[in-house]
């Protein structure tokens, strides 16, 4: 599967991102629990892109190393950015009526989690989940 990019501009797009991530996770032969974790993380991050980033995109791609396969999802927005990433990753931290589990919770559900953000320049979050 080549990389597929979906816009995130509304509620329905969050559902579409979940479905595309699920399809990629099945194709990469992730276990059911790992599929569920990745799709849940994608749902949290897509909602962040929408509510905090003012919309953006998700790019879903199957990746492989020499020994295993996985799925990478990149969330990108051109929103206000996150001034203090460490604080935003803390459980309980919340800005826009969330439960404060979005970012930190999503990080726990994936194998690699990378976030690049600066005030005024938007946010890019990259996550990877590998098949075991």
């Amino acid at each position, binding site marked *: 599967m080549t990389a597929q990019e979906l816009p995130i501009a509304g509620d329905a797009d969050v559902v579409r991102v979940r479905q595309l991530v*699920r399809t990629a996770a099945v194709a990469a032969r992730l276990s*059911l*629990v790992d599929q*569920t*974790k990745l*799709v849940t993380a994608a749902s*949290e991050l897509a909602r962040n892109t929408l509510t905090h980033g003012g919309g953006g995109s998700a790019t879903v791609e199957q990746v492989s190393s020499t020994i295993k396969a996985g799925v990478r999802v990149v969330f990108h927005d051109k929103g206000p950015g996150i001034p203090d990433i460490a604080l935003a990753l803390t459980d309980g931290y919340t800005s826009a009526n969330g*439960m404060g*589990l979005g970012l930190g919770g999503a990080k726990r559900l994936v194998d690699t989690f990378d976030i690049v953000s600066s005030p005024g320049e938007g946010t890019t979050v990259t996550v990877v989940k590998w098949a075991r």
Partner: protein
Amino acid sequence: MERIPILKIGNLLLVSIQVDLQDRTVITLEEDLAEKIVATGARGVVIDITALDIVDSFTGRMLATIASISRVLDAETVVVGMRPAVAITLVELGLSLEGIKTALDVERGMRLLSARA
């Protein structure tokens, strides 16, 4: 937008979520359910999530909110049918759904509530 049906069975209400939830659908359900509890005088609400392949923090918060609203309106809520992979993911995400009663399936959930009603 899809609307989730609410069925009345005796003095219980049954909500079976069969669609991939959009945030707006969830908010509408909270309102519909509150009105239905008052209109029917229901003593309990069973929410069946068998068909949900994920529960994220938004949906988890919705379940907690519905349970709180119901309690204030003198009805008890039981969430039933959670898939094993969903349960594992929820706990790792940091949501333990404290304060929400759960049962493995609709039948057990209804039995749990009937004891009270």
